């Protein structure tokens, strides 16, 4: 695999246009996403923050092809993923998902998990795939755990392995749904460094949902703040802190200003969400 392969190649541009998603279980319509538009350039790290239950995962699922959109369209590098003519996007290895709760197959070892994609896509023979998986896991610092099952390693290691499982397929876009949620600050820091290192190497487009504002600014090129349900784009904050970033950046003045800007916007939405919740209860 050549390094710097699609770094700044501009591949993996996502264009989300007027997407609406309405759930209708039991005949009651729940509008999760309403007329939401977003442009994500290729090789961009795009962070999505917004109140709980506002429809972020719904948006990600539509991109990944896990469920259909009610209206609007999503394009990847100009090609239609889903739109009025085809509400459900095909699932494909060009968009790899890292799940909110982790979804390494517990019955496969880390190495088998990582090798799985290339094997079923028939990109590599199983021997080559296993070798490549071993190498890539070793690069991610998991060389000693190749034959361990996901249940035997820490959640941080499992998460890193899951990202490796996604990256072995050379995706254009990496879709992460609060991947570092229940992690302690120290582990999170290591995970961030590892993700940024991967990003610098591959230039994959990253679509990253999080609740952690510092994480959003530290990792992102852009932070998209979305409104409370139904989900719409409220504000986009550009993060112009140069890469490579290190942990010291978090104490810089520029970082603090951005954090303030983002938290103001998020706070406003959180209050709205809270009040809406109270209204629903009343």
């Amino acid at each position, binding site marked *: 695999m050549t390094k710097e392969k699609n770094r700044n190649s501009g591949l993996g541009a996502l264009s989300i246009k007027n997407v609406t998603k309405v759930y209708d279980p039991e005949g009651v319509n729940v509008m999760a996403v309403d007329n939401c538009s977003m442009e994500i350039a290729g090789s961009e790290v795009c962070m999505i923050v917004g109140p709980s239950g506002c429809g972020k995962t719904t948006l990600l699922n539509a991109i*990944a*092809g*896990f469920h259909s959109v009610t209206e609007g369209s999503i394009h990847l590098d100009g090609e239609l993923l889903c739109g009025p003519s085809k509400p459900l996007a095909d*699932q*494909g*290895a060009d*968009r*790899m*998902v890292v*799940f909110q*709760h982790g*979804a*390494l*197959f*517990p*019955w*496969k*070892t880390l190495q088998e998990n990582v090798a*799985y*994609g290339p094997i*079923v*896509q028939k990109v590599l023979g199983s021997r080559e795939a296993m070798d490549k998986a071993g190498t890539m896991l070793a690069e991610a610092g998991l060389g000693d755990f190749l034959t361990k*099952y996901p*249940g*035997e390693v820490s959640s941080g290691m499992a998460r890193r392995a899951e990202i490796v*499982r996604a990256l072995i*397929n050379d995706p254009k876009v990496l879709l992460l749904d609060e991947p570092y949620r229940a992690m302690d600050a120290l582990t999170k820091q290591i995970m961030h460094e590892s993700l940024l290192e991967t990003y610098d190497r591959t230039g994959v487009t990253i679509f990253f949902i999080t609740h952690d504002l510092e994480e959003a600014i530290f990792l992102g090129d852009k932070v998209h703040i979305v409104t409370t349900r139904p989900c719409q784009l409220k504000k986009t904050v550009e993060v112009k802190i140069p890469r490579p970033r290190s942990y010291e950046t978090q104490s810089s003045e520029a970082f603090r200003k951005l954090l303030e800007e983002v938290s103001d916007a998020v706070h406003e939405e959180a209050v709205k969400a809270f009040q809406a919740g109270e209204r629903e209860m009343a």
Partner: protein
Amino acid sequence: MSANSSTTNQNGKMVAPQGFNLFVYKTKKYLGQLDPYLTLMGIGLWLFAYWVLCEGLQIWRFDKLPGPVAISKDWFAVDPFQGISIFTQEYYDHIIVSCRRILIAFGIATAFGVPLGLFMGWSRTIRDYIFPIIEVLRPIPILAWVPLSILLLPGFEGPVLFLATLASFFVTTLNAMLGVDSIDEEYFRAAGCLGSSRWDVFKNVVVPGALPFIFTGLQISIGVAWFSLVAAEMVSGDLGLGYLIVDAYMNNVTVPMVIAMITLGFIGYFSSALVRMLGNKLMAWHVKELSQQGR
């Protein structure tokens, strides 16, 4: 010999014990706990109560039953008073016949039940066709099938095998299906996103994901198979442990009756332990996950 009994290799480095060494280590650890002694005491107390009731005090109605002394005298006698002991060929004939029947019935039930259950869990269409029928047939008690099976199948062997197979089949099928239902949706999504075909998903997600449920089901199903086999042998049989029990009862020899019962207990226990061991072997990931959680 020294290599066999130590956990240290030539370089003096500690290595994890394996094979026989692991067994020795585990046995030692087990004997160091209180559990085995409590178990032994429990068995002792139970036997003692049994003896007091039947032979010691000869309580009313219990005096009709053979006590532990009478049973062990006959069971281990070269020339047993009531005809059945570990030295008589007849004893083994009954055991072998019953075990062979279980093997066949459990084998057929597993061979058909597991795939059917998996397909039912995997495909909505297959489930819609088959599940309602199974759900109606399943609650019919296995003994209610006896007349039908005798009408349908010739000889002694046919009905007996049919009943044991049927009972075990329902349990296995249902558990395999529930096993598929129990798999987290995210594994299917992950598999889809990694580029799996529908068949890849079946092989790599459906089958391994359902395995824990399948083996729980198989352990129950082998118990159910024994249960219905013995019932069937008692109603329609020429040989087998169930037949031995009714035959002894009819002929008023109670010792072989109890010997057959205890034998069933032990064989039943070993057969389900065997299934469990096989399951643990196939699901190393599951065993390790559970042990990680301290179970």
